[in-house]
């Protein structure tokens, strides 16, 4: 699905920015990986998104998450890599109701270095998966979520 999406964008961007108007919600919707996002287990999400659960744990995937979340509602996450030919960066939260959190398509011009803020329903392992040259590389780390808070 991701590939057809990219082809479609390439087709579009051959033209000018005037084509932007053509990016109607319907076409974008079609590209959104709904099966993978709706999956309730990490394995199902992997299968739907990558067609495989075969990942290699790699230090090339630089994942930065806190050890203890200040705020489970907005946990900063950064992922970057020096790997070549990166196609996508994807973030999973193992114990969230829907583990697939976000997936970023990395074009030839995009630097494989992204940051976002995610929700953790509870203490969970956060995993970043980088697809590069057709292979899946991953890195995981646990983030603790605590209840309460003085927040002085």
């Amino acid at each position: 699905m991701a590939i057809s999406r990219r082809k479609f964008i390439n087709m579009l961007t051959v033209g000018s920015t005037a084509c932007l108007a053509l990016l109607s919600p319907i076409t974008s919707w079609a590209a959104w990986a709904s099966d993978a996002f709706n999956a309730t287990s990490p394995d199902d999400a992997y299968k739907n998104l990558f067609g495989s659960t075969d990942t290699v744990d790699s230090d090339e995937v630089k994942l930065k998450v806190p050890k203890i979340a200040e705020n489970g509602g907005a946990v900063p996450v950064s992922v970057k890599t020096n790997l070549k030919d990166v196609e996508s960066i994807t973030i999973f939260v193992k114990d969230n109701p829907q583990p697939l959190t976000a997936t970023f398509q990395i074009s030839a011009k995009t630097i494989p270095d992204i940051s976002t803020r995610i929700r953790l329903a509870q203490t969970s392992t956060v995993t970043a998966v980088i697809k590069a040259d057709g292979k899946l590389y991953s890195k995981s780390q646990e983030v603790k979520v605590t209840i309460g808070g003085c927040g002085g």
Partner: protein
Amino acid sequence: MKVKAKAKNNITSVRVLAKHPMETGRRIDKESGEKIPAKYIQELTCEHEGNVVFVAQLGTSVSKNPYLAFSFEGGKKGDALQLRWNDNTGDVAKVEAKIK
């Protein structure tokens, strides 16, 4: 949508904050006792001179008022960026930002 974009050494770094509730569809309204319907951004894109330089697909685990930071090769001070998101209900927001 708030955008901060800076160019340095032929690399443009972009930070975006999209104002959006990111309702998961699982939350219960405390007063009515009913589920608040899901409303979340599914896709956010950024274009520079007609090229898509960033595509993010998001789910309900992304925090309220999604924050995204990314960078791409090319771009210079004064260039325009077109950012756009659409959510699961079909709402769309577009903004043009200048690289500083």
